[in-house]
């Protein structure tokens, strides 16, 4: 538990809409992505902090972008290009500070981490609660799948189906048929999967 981190973020002054707009523009670097670049960078940062074992990756990603937004608000310009490179530099500082903060504080409670010493939740025997949770996920996924456009649904089913050793060939054929590169196909499939994942998470919260 890292209560101090949460407290520190609560004490941060609020971020204005105009600073946020400036941050969106800077991240876009001349292209109008309609917020996509911001979300992509936020996702990258969350993944980075998570992989480095930080317990609050979302908050650290917010903190990173918040600092950049404040720099832009104060100075009007950031000379380092491309913006993504600067994001990494700031993220690294934010992570080092977070590690230092963690070392200074005593954990309030022992929170065992799944892994070598314990089986992950997904691998445990399915109790009634877990069964209910899985049913809920199924309901939500069904609902979210119905919201996809038919061509999006076709794409992810074909892309992620069990290739039984033929997966790369299948995807290559698919990319050829669609007239795009394998990488572009992968990005498209990942985006749709990400949308589904977010939709399922939101659906679970609502229920």
């Amino acid at each position, binding site marked *: 538990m890292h209560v101090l981190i949460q407290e520190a973020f609560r004490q941060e002054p609020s971020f204005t809409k105009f600073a946020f707009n400036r941050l*969106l523009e800077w991240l876009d670097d001349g292209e109008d992505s309609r917020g996509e670049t911001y979300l992509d960078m936020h996702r*990258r940062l969350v993944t980075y902090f998570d992989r480095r074992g930080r317990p609050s990756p979302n908050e650290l990603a917010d903190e990173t972008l918040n600092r950049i937004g404040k720099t832009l608000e104060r100075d009007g310009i950031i000379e380092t290009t491309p913006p993504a490179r600067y994001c990494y530099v700031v993220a690294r500082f934010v992570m080092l500070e977070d590690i230092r903060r963690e070392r200074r504080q005593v954990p309030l409670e022992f929170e065992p981490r799944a892994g070598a010493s314990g089986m992950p939740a997904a691998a445990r025997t399915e109790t009634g609660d877990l069964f209910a949770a899985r049913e809920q996920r199924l309901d939500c996924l069904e609902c979210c799948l119905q919201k996809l456009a038919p061509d999006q649904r076709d794409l992810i089913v074909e892309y992620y189906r069990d290739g039984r050793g033929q997966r790369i060939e299948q995807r290559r054929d698919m990319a050829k048929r669609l007239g795009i590169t394998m990488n572009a196909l992968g990005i498209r499939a*990942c985006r749709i999967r990400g949308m589904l994942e977010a939709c399922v998470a939101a659906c679970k919260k609502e229920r």
Partner: protein
Amino acid sequence: MKGLALHESVHDSQLVRYLLGLLSDDEAERVDQLSISSDEVASRLRIAEDDLVDAYVRGTLDEEAAGRFVSFYLSSERRRQKVKFARTFVAAIDQRGGSPKSLSLRGTTIPRSRTAWRLAAAAAMLLVAGLSLREYLRLRTDLTVAQSVSIGLSNRASELERQLNDAHLADAETARELERTRARGSAGASSPSLPAIALVLLPQTRAMGPIATIAVPDGAHFVELELQLESSDFARYQAVLKDPGTNRIVWRRDKIAARAGDRIPTVALSIPATVLKSQHYSLELNGTNASGESEMAGSYVFQVVRR
């Protein structure tokens, strides 16, 4: 965001080893950096991660990889959630045996018509968001007077993501429905918190006209300007704001893309209010052509009045 230089290339097998925590510290740090600063590595890492998770869920990882997956990858709550989602997702995909036309988890689809979905999505977007992201992002360039509005840090990304997901999940027909609803003057489509005032600057001509004046109240953070172009001949523009009295550059912005607009191409600028005083300003717009050469694309004059 940009791609990566050749010397920065990363092999797919390295990405998998990175995801399983098998790289040395130096190698891992290099991939860390590229996973943020390189579009290509970021997307390939995402693809590799989804494939790795699916392989674990389908039980096709070899013993060593499966062991690392459990001991390293599953040590984070976020990643455990990814695996939970993948279990449901992969089951749904595999149950269909790769037949996309009939994708449904229990063999029956929810009886909802497409039209009902579209209308529901349109109504939800109007009611819940009040304003779609697209509309919001369009309107933000029309603001002239900055108004401080707090945005909760922790909700910012998730709210934006939610709105974008709504926009993605609603198809083109939904968007048209939304436009029709707005056109009918839906009260929900306008937000009182967003001033609908625009300061549009026209390029200077020989004929002297009145100078555009903008009132900037104390506490304003940014001044948003929309510069009309005579033509859109350049891929990128550079804006230079000068104090005409001293010819000193007070602010500059590079790599700006023009927007097509309805009829007239424009360039949108967001100038920090802190650099503006009560005086006249000249704004030069330079275009950069395909070969990287810069030439004057227009000049604008306006007056600032601080309040």
